[in-house]
């Protein structure tokens, strides 16, 4: 393979907490503490691990929602961690994030059309409403929704539909890297499968690269090419999906796989 699209080296993101009040010591939380990985064009890398191990913080640092403490993240040859906000702005279109909560990520006062038009205008991808509307209609159909739904408001949709809209809002920008942080865990079980299938299909058809953050190992197996296992701020193992699931090397990975509840006597 050629040069990776994203190459993260020794990434650290620390938070300092406490310090106020009588006798309370200030302490440092090393949420991400020396993480290195790379993602190639068209590849899906999953990040799995214990609750609180720092997965979301990795994603949030790469989209610059948190400031990195140290390390580099080369995207297309440039270190995105030390670009100025003005230098980073054009890259926002290329690096998009899908959030866990489909309810919180849509503005309740904006129609779906406006919610999807906004990023198109911000990134100057269209100049007029007609072109925008055409793009929006196409993208809604792409995520399996009726183009007519663009005149409606978020509260008129179910959780699964809102997550589709969230995905549409990301895909309409034709990003090069999508960071999806637990994109299906807030959804109903029967709807999770629909959205996972959709993400996989969109990823294949568009060839976008993806960092898929999840604690659902079934979903991870379904969608990824490679898997990185995180434990207390560090990666303990990275490998091809098959290798991680079938011949895990690190003790924590083995424990993770052994802990998955199983359905015995599956119906055939």
């Amino acid at each position, binding site marked *: 393979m050629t040069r990776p699209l994203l190459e993260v080296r020794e990434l650290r993101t620390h938070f300092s907490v406490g310090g106020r009040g009588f006798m309370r010591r200030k302490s440092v939380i090393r949420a991400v503490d020396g993480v290195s990985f790379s993602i190639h064009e068209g590849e899906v890398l999953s990040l799995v691990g214990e609750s609180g191990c720092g997965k979301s913080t990795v994603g949030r640092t790469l989209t610059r929602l948190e400031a990195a403490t140290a390390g580099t993240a080369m995207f297309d040859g440039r270190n995105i961690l030390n670009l100025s906000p003005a230098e980073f702005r054009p890259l926002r279109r290329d690096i998009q994030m899908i959030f866990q909560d489909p309810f919180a990520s849509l503005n309740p006062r904006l129609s779906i059309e406006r919610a999807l038009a906004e990023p198109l205008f911000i990134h100057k991808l269209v100049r007029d409403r007609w072109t925008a509307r055409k793009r929006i209609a196409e993208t809604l159909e792409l995520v399996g929704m009726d183009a007519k739904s663009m005149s409606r408001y978020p509260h008129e949709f179910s959780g699964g539909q809102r997550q589709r809209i969230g995905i549409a809002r990301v895909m309409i920008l034709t990003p090069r890297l999508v960071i999806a942080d637990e994109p299906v865990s807030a959804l109903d079980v029967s*709807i999770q499968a629909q959205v996972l299938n959709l993400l996989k299909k969109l990823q294949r058809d568009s060839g976008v690269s993806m960092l898929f953050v999840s604690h659902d190992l079934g979903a991870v197996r379904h969608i990824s090419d490679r898997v990185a296992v995180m434990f207390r701020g560090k990666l303990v193992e990275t490998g091809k999906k098959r290798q991680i699931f079938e011949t895990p090397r690190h003790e924590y990975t083995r424990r993770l796989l052994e802990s998955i*509840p199983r359905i015995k006597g599956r119906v055939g």
Partner: protein
Amino acid sequence: MVLLDIRDLDLSIARGGELLPVVQGISFTVEENETLGIVGESGCGKSLTALAIMGLLEGSAVRIAGGSIHFQGRNLLALAPVERRRVMGERMAMIFQEPMTSLNPVYRIGDQIGEAILQHRRMSRKQVHERVLELLDLVRIPDPERLIDSFPHQMSGGQRQRVMIAMALACDPKLLIADEPTTALDVTVQKDVLELMHSLQTRTGMSIVLISHDLAVIAETCDKVAVMYRGRIVEHAATSALFSNMSHPYTLGLLGSIPAHDQDVEWLDAIPGRVPTLDELISGCAFHPRCFAAKDSCRTVDPVAAAVAPAHFVRCHFPQGNST
């Protein structure tokens, strides 16, 4: 011996001058030392059923429209509120689905657990403190000495969930209702928490009602299972019977939509369509618009629960299992 016996429970929600049925004719029993699992779509009425048992619907828009809830032989719905709260406080405990809304944000978590202990037992401050640490340790909270002084917002979702579990276990309940107790947790912690509940059950003989959307969690931990769809129990059986002979198309759909971690499949068998809203009227069987097995009769006639095997009930015109 039967500890909890629910018969034909109906719950309705008052909305805009109307009463919308939300739980319809639910019946099940839980024996001492037994675990019942309830699984189903989001919004199908699992949490409301739990809140009805706990007597926590007063003051909400939800009404108990019919049926009975017997606990240790007494109908809780016929008791005076004071008496009812006493039974409930002493012998039942619940782990709530949303720990953030059920923990008090302005009190340190150690004090909240201590409070729960003191409601049931007299102890010195020092004993309470020790018991709190013991409980936090039991639910595998790392560094309990430090966390005991935290406020809820200073903890991760998983940590808050474990605090809720510690509080529920503080009083050695006869009946523990656990509403999605491990959904926010990763599998290693989930395993510990489920094992913890099981070992307490072995020791104290308590009964558990475990609400989960995760069929695998139910399969591993429950003696019997009730599958709910849109306010009704659509399939009900002993766990082994259910998993060896799944009969309702919805139950099969749930199983099919779980991505497997031990094999590669190209596409998941998702259940098509979406979860209906409460005010949508669906004629016939409520699942028919999404059902692969639906025929004309499903669109017009609502099926009743029928046995496909001894003690295995299914509400479907065309059950899919192998013993029909």
